[in-house]
C-alpha cells in the first residue's frame, strides 16, 4: 500500500501543487510536504493574475506556455477558484508610454498573442473609472485571474485523487542525496526531490539566489461593475526591475465577487510581514492617480506577502547546483501563479527525460553560479 515516493516535493504552494498534479498524472508516486498548511507562503498572499509578459523572450515563453495551460484547465476549475477571463488592460500615461504600447502590440502579435491598442477615449470606455487624459492602452483579452489559495488547493486535490500523499505542518529542514529530512528527524527517500519552497528555497539548497520582495495588497468591499479588466500601468515593469529600491506601480484587479484588489508594491530587505504604512500610502496615491474613484471605495483588508525574486527576474527550474537529484522550482517573483503550470511541465519533462515544450536553459539554476563566476 504505502510504497515509498518516487518524488518528494517540498512546498504545497502553487508551484508544489502544480508539480504534484503533473507528476501524479504521469503515474509517479508523489509525496508533498509543507511546513504549514497549503498556501501559507506567497501563494496565500498573491494577486492571482495570469498574464503574458514580454520583459524578455524567456519570460514571454514561460508565461505564454503557462497561460495556455491555464486556459486548457479552465473547464475543470471549480467556482471556488474564481477563474475569470477578464483580460489585462495596460494603460499608458503619455505618448512615450504609447510607443511602448505599440512595441508591445507588435511583440505580442508576432507571437500569436491577441492584443489591441486603445486610444484615449477607448481606454476610458473600457474602464470608465480611469482618469481622463490617459494616452491610451493595450488590451490583452487572453489574460485572466484566479483565486490562488483555492487554485493551489484544486491542483493539490487533483494530485491526491491520482494517489499523491500530502503532509502538512511538518517543516523540512534538509534535502539532498535523495533524502528529505523533517525537524523531528524523519526521513523520506526519493529518486527526486523538488525544492518548491518559494522564498525559503535557499535554506534548503545552497547556491541559489532568491531574495524576498515584500508586497502589499488591499481588497475592497463589493462594487459590481466598477472594474472589468486587470488594469496595470506600463510603469509596472520598471517597478519589477529595480534590484534595490522600494517601488510602487498601479495594478488593480476585479474579483468575481465585485471586490477590487489594489496593488502593487515592492520592497527589498523588509524584516517582517507587518503592514508598512509608508509604502501603503505611496501605493494608494499611485492608484488614485490612475483611478481617482478608488479613493472612495471601502477597503476591508490589507495584507502583505513576499515574492521570491531572482536577480535576472526568471524563475529557477532545474537541478540544484550542488545536487542533481534535487530539482529547484522556485524564484517566480510576481509570476508564480501564472507560470506554475508551465513550471510543473518543465520539471516533469526533466524527471522523465523528455523534451521540454520550451527551451529550459534560461531557467536552469546553474546559470546563477555562472553569473557569479563572471563577476
Amino acid at each position, binding site marked *: 500500500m504505502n510504497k515509498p515516493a518516487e518524488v518528494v516535493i517540498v512546498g504545497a504552494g502553487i508551484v508544489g501543487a502544480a508539480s504534484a498534479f503533473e507528476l501524479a498524472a504521469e503515474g509517479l508516486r508523489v509525496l508533498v510536504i509543507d511546513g504549514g*498548511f*497549503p*498556501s*501559507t507562503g506567497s501563494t*496565500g498572499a498573491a494577486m492571482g493574475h495570469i498574464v503574458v509578459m514580454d520583459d524578455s523572450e524567456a519570460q514571454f515563453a514561460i508565461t505564454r506556455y503557462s497561460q495556455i495551460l491555464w486556459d486548457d484547465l479552465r473547464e475543470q476549475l471549480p467556482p471556488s477558484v474564481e477563474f475569470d477571463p477578464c483580460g489585462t488592460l495596460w494603460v499608458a500615461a503619455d505618448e512615450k508610454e504609447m510607443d511602448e504600447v505599440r512595441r508591445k502590440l507588435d511583440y505580442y502579435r508576432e507571437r500569436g498573442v491577441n492584443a489591441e491598442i486603445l486610444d484615449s477615449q477607448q481606454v476610458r470606455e473600457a474602464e470608465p473609472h480611469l482618469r481622463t487624459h490617459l494616452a491610451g492602452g493595450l488590451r490583452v483579452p487572453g489574460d485572466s485571474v484566479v483565486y490562488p*489559495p*483555492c487554485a493551489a*488547493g484544486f491542483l493539490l486535490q487533483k494530485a491526491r485523487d491520482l494517489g499523491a500523499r500530502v503532509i*502538512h*505542518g511538518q517543516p523540512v529542514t534538509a534535502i539532498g542525496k535523495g533524502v528529505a529530512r523533517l525537524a523531528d528527524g524523519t526521513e523520506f527517500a526519493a529518486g527526486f526531490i523538488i525544492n518548491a519552497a518559494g522564498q525559503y528555497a535557499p535554506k534548503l539548497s545552497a547556491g541559489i539566489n532568491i531574495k524576498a520582495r515584500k508586497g502589499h495588497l*488591499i*481588497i*475592497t*468591499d463589493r462594487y459590481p461593475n466598477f472594474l472589468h479588466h486587470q488594469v496595470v500601468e506600463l510603469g509596472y515593469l520598471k517597478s519589477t526591475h529595480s534590484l534595490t529600491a522600494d517601488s510602487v506601480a498601479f495594478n488593480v484587479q476585479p474579483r468575481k465577487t465585485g471586490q477590487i484588489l*489594489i496593488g502593487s508594491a515592492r520592497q527589498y530587505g523588509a524584516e517582517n510581514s*507587518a*503592514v*508598512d*504604512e*509608508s509604502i*501603503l*500610502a505611496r501605493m*494608494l*496615491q499611485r*492608484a*488614485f492617480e490612475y483611478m481617482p474613484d*478608488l*479613493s*472612495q*471605495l*471601502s*477597503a*476591508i*483588508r*490589507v*495584507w502583505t506577502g513576499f515574492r521570491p525574486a531572482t536577480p535576472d527576474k526568471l524563475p529557477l527550474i532545474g537541478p540544484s547546483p550542488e545536487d542533481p537529484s534535487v530539482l529547484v522550482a522556485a524564484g517566480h517573483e510576481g509570476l508564480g501563479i501564472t507560470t506554475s503550470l508551465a513550471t510543473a511541465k518543465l520539471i516533469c519533462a526533466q524527471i522523465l527525460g523528455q523534451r521540454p515544450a520550451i527551451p529550459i536553459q534560461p531557467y536552469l539554476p546553474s546559470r546563477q553560479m555562472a553569473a557569479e563566476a563572471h563577476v
Partner: protein
Amino acid sequence: MDSVKHLRFDVAVVGAGPAGIAAAVAASDSGKSVGLIDDNPASGGQIWRGAHNAPRHSASSVWFERLNKSAVRIVRGARVFHATKGELTAESDDSAIQITYGKLILATGARELFLPFPGWTLPNVMGAGGLQALLKSGLDIAGKRILVAGTGPLLLAVAAYARKCGAKVIGICEQTTRPRMARFGLKMMLVPGKAVEALRFAYDLRGIPHWTDCWPVAAFGNRRVESVRISRQGQTSEIECDYLACGFHLIPNVELPRMCGCRLRENFVDVDEYQQTSVAGTYCAGEPTGIGGLELALVEGEIAGYAATNWEDRAKHLFAKRARYQKVARILKDAFPLRPELKNLARPDTLICRCEDVPHERLREHGSWRAAKLHARCGMGPCQGRVCAPAAEFLFGWENDSVRPPLYPVRCSSLAAIPSHSAPRI
C-alpha cells in the same frame, strides 16, 4: 481627495460608553486637554444608547451632565482604524482624522457572541443587545411577539425593555442551568445596589416565562423569522414570533488594544491597579478588561482617567469601590458558561460566516482559523471576523490570528492618510 483633520489631546479616550465617559470626565478634572472619540452618532455606547431620554437622577443623566459641563472635546462618528505609539488614525463620514496624544485610554466595550444555528441569518433574528439597540434607535415593536434567547443578564434587560416598548415578550430562553441561574440571582442580591435592581427586574418581567436549560435549535420563516424551535430540558417545541432576540453574552472588543500592543490574558486586556496596560501610558477600562457591567465600567473609567493625569490619590480612593464591583465580573464568569450542546446546533449547511456565506461543512475540513480563512474565505468580509471568528473559536477551538490595520473597513483615501513618518512600530 478627502481632507485630513489633525487633533491633539493630552489624553485621548476611545469609546464613549460609560467607561469612556467616566474616564474622560475624570481626566478632564486635571485641566489637561481630553478628547473622547467614538464611532456612533451619539455618546453612550450600548447601555446608554439614546440616554437623553433617561430620568434626571439616573446614573446616565448624572454622567452626561458632567460630560457636557466639562471641557472634554467629543469627536463623534469617528472610527479608529489604526494605532501606533502616540498616534491614532480615525475616519469620519467626511475625512480622515489623525489624533496625537500623550496618554491613551481604551474603553472600546464589548459586543455580543453569536452562535450559529439553522435559520439564524433570517431577518428579524438579531442579537439581544441588537434588538435593544434598534429599540433605542427608534424601532417600534408595539404588539409584536418577541422571543428572547441565549445567555446572560442582558436577556433580562432586553426582555424588560422590549416589554416597556409595548412588545409581547413570549419568553426568555436561558441556556444556563437552573442551579447556576439561582446562584447568580442570590449572589447578585449581595452586591451593593443590585438587590434593588434584581427586584425591579423581577417586577418588570412578571408573568414572562423564564426557562433555563433552554436554547434555540432552529429559526424558520420565509424571508423573515416566523417561528423558532427551542429545546427545553430535553423536549423541543415551536414558538411563533415576530422577532428572535438571541445573544450568548459578551465578548470584549480587544482589537484596538491588540493593535496598540497591549498584552492580553485569556482574551481580556491585562491591566494593573491603575488600569494601565502593558504599554506605558496606555490605559484600559470597562468590558475589555473583563465583562463586569455598568458600575465596574464607571469606576474603572474614573480610575483610568485620574491615573492618566497623574492624580494617583483620587484613583486610589476608588480602589475599594472597584473591588466591590469586581465581584460582579466574577459572578458573571461563573454563571453563564456555554454548554456543549450549543456546539452541535449548526448543521453542515448552516452558515458560519455571514459576510461570505460560508457554511459549517466548508470550515470543518480545515485545521486552523488562518487556513479556513484563506481557503473558504470566512472572516474575509467587512466584519473582519467579528461575528464569525468567536463562533469558530467556540465550535472548533480555533484561535483568532493577529490583528492588522485597518481595524474597520475604511475608505481607501483614509488608508492613505495613516501617518508614516513616525513612531516606531509597536
